[in-house]
């Protein structure tokens, strides 16, 4: 089996949500001497890209996305020990969680999966997360993004608190704050001074990629 075909089999396994297939062909790829990072990028993540496309077009729903991400993770677990250390230099880092007082985490989990499949490094804080814990974690891991989710009107205030606490601690410019969830809107995002709102997981990741490109461009300009 040639390299291209192997990658396709792995991607197919993710799309078909078959973890056994994914693991089998990831192992074959390793046996063929292929690079673990290449297998992840050309196989697993290509598969997950297709999954997120199927999700956006309404052919896949949450159970399919979750099951596919389980299959992807099985592949990643197999490949991880074979990853060369130096790849992690330009990784986008994301701290994500559901704000304090709310335990609805389906939306958050979906954004997490989409972030991971985009190759971001995700620190999942879980549900019902105290405001300052987000900030402490973001500082600790030197994150690029803080992603906040809530389904309830009563806990939307917590998103504003994150922005305010960042200002108080002199950290506002260090992180981009992304918000999402049922009652949240672009208008609310503008009101509280967050950096980005998105209505669904796929567009959230797209927006984050755009922001990273902009950030890279800005910092290059500053150096000039």
């Amino acid at each position, binding site marked *: 089996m040639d390299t291209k075909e192997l990658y396709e089999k792995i991607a197919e396994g993710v799309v078909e*949500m078959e973890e056994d297939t994914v693991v089998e062909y990831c192992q074959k790829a390793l046996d063929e001497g292929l690079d673990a990072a290449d297998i992840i990028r050309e196989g697993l993540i290509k598969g997950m890209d297709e999954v997120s496309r199927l999700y956006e077009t*309404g052919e*896949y*729903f*949450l*159970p*399919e996305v*979750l*099951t596919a991400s*389980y299959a992807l993770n099985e592949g990643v677990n197999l490949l991880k020990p074979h990853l060369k250390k130096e790849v992690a230099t330009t990784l986008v880092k994301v701290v994500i969680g559901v704000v304090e*007082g709310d*335990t609805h*985490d*389906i939306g958050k*989990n979906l954004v997490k999966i989409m972030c991971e499949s985009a190759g971001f490094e995700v620190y999942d804080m879980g549900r019902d997360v105290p405001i300052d814990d987000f900030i402490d974690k973001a500082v600790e891991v030197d994150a690029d993004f803080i992603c906040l989710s809530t389904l*309830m*009107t*009563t806990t939307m205030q917590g998103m504003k608190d994150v922005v305010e606490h960042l200002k108080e601690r002199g950290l506002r410019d260090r992180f981009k704050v992304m918000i999402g969830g049922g*009652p949240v809107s672009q208008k609310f995002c503008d009101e509280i001074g967050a950096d980005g709102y998105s209505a669904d997981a796929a567009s959230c990741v797209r927006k984050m990629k755009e922001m990273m490109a902009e950030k890279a461009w800005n910092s290059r300009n500053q150096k000039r």
Partner: protein
Amino acid sequence: MNSLERIRATIKKEEHDRPICICPGGMMNYITTELLEKGGFNFRDAHVDAKTMADLSEYAWKEGCFENMGVPFCMTVELEGMGSKIDLGDNKREPRVVEYIYKKIEETTDVKRIDLSEGRVFAVLKAISILKERHSDVPVVGNLTGPVSIATSLIDSTPFYVALRKKGDICHEFLRKITDELIKFGSAMADSGADVIMIADPSATGEILGPKYFKEFAVKYLNDLVEGIKKNHPDVIVIVHICGQMTPVLAEANEINSDAFSFDAIVGLKDIRKNMQDKIIMGNVSTYAIEGQDEEKVKQMTKLCITQGMDIISPACGLGMGSPLKNVQAVLTGTKEYGGESCLK
């Protein structure tokens, strides 16, 4: 025409004076912080004590919030009966489950059976009978949480949704056991005098499940639940509410055999009618508008629901507890103001 006659006429598609305006309770919360403070209630007590529960429900009715009474005020009573640990919240926060009982889907074989004679389950049944004794002419609603939402509160939703595909048999068995317990509780509510049983199953939304799983796991057990309650109580009115964007699964939702169906604000009545011509539809004044806009705006949104042909007027989901009382009341005053000429003649 009193409000019990009004809702019965609505369900039977008989002539009535105007649409009825209700908010059932349970997940479809109608209690706000302002109402609790005005009446001097402690919300925690009202979740636990039968008389306080009944008094609070009656108080909301007297304050002109809606034309029904209904208990409980949360979606955690059955879960507590099945062994979940609950944080009862306070006057600003509704009760919620603190942690999941099960980690893996394989552990769900030992669903704890609900004891109708103890705890908050008993308090709810008692509160229903108190309300019915006091008000024979007002619809009293007993609220249940639907099977899928119970399931995803007993186990984390992620392993549950993954198991739907890989371990469907275990999920079916889990949901069947949950449904049996809900039939038992719902029937006891009807025995206690509930005129309406409201089943809210927010996690069963087609937006999450997609049409295939919605049909296989949500519609199936909702129907078993409706049939199980109706078997011994054919006259009780059963309403089903499902949250979220339901447009992709409306054809499947039409197979749910409840007397009426309630939708979120995001679902348009035009789309609903395309798939569910004959169903009694309840809804769907935006709860965000009730919480964040003013009385006049709420009234206008209520009017829009009426002119579009909504059969029963209600908020689209549970009210945020911070909703101003005058906005809550505006749904009913709006219904009375604009609903006069819209019903079957």
